[in-house]
């Protein structure tokens, strides 16, 4: 059985970068797949990889990570400025971030608007 845990953006917005990453990693280390509303900052994504590497041992093999995000190039002018301002003030709530344990998630295939998640147990595709 695969368990998904939804984390609303409000669940991380007041946390520091380190605490955000720890929160997500703790869920992943309990063998659940995180579905986060919105996305982390770019630097936080790199930090997430870095901290994941520090945590790897014989049980925890790492993570699979994927972000579905609306195509920036499609929004124009005022809409782009508006989105930028909202993101700066309230955090980036657009899109979804998926983080799963590498022991369960074999791979996440990412097309711009679609995610295919392959689990390790039976290699079944889940849309």
């Amino acid at each position, binding site marked *: 059985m695969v368990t998904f845990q939804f984390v609303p953006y409000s669940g991380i917005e007041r946390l520091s970068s380190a605490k955000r990453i720890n929160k997500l990693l703790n869920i992943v280390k309990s063998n659940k797949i995180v579905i986060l509303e919105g996305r982390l900052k770019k630097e936080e994504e790199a930090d997430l990889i870095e901290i994941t590497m520090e945590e790897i041992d014989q049980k925890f093999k790492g993570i699979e990570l*994927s972000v579905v995000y609306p195509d920036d190039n499609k929004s124009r002018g005022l809409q782009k400025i508006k989105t930028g301002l909202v993101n700066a003030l309230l955090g980036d709530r657009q899109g979804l971030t998926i983080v799963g344990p590498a022991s369960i998630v074999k791979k996440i295939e*990412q097309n711009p608007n679609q995610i295919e998640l392959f689990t390790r147990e039976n290699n079944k595709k889940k849309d």
Partner: protein
Amino acid sequence: MVTLIQKLVNTFFKNFFSQKSHIKLGLYGPPNGGKSTLANKICTDWLGEEMSTVSHIPHETREINIKEEVHIKNKKGKELTFSLVDTPGIATRIDYEEFIKKGMKGVIAKKRAKEATKGVIDAIKWLDKMDSVVVVLDSTIDPFSQVNITIIGNLQARNIPVLIVANKVDLKKANLDRIKAAFPQYEVVGVSAKYGQNIDLFYENLFKLVK
């Protein structure tokens, strides 16, 4: 007044030359994209010696390798000097059992996995030290991976100029257009680092990258 002007001129030249001689050009990307093969090609072409070992088993490069004072020249006679930094491949998962499947013994596989995790951490930490970066991707593999997006996003956030090399274009499965479509805002050069295909075009693009 003359002293002030002289000071300014001296500072300008000092900064200009110190910057130029200390340019750090990083090779970044996921494991097995061909970073070390490209590093070896550059060093063989311009220094007459290789700098890194290569292997078909991922995470062969587990430490930052630096080759100082690499001088390259273009057809117009323009010269470029940089320190070439070959970095370990960035991954989100490292499983020692994968190395065992490739024929390694348990102890060696575990050691390699441990070193590989440290290598990834070092590669990320070194992002801040780079002046320009060549992201080396395997053109036979789907480029829409979060690791690629995270690497390039972090370089963009740090205002570090990026050139994307789509490596292994000598292989039948290579798909240069797929990489161009994934990262339309960047210059993409298709090369075969192993066989030197399109390598002159790569060098020309290095001059544009490291201005």
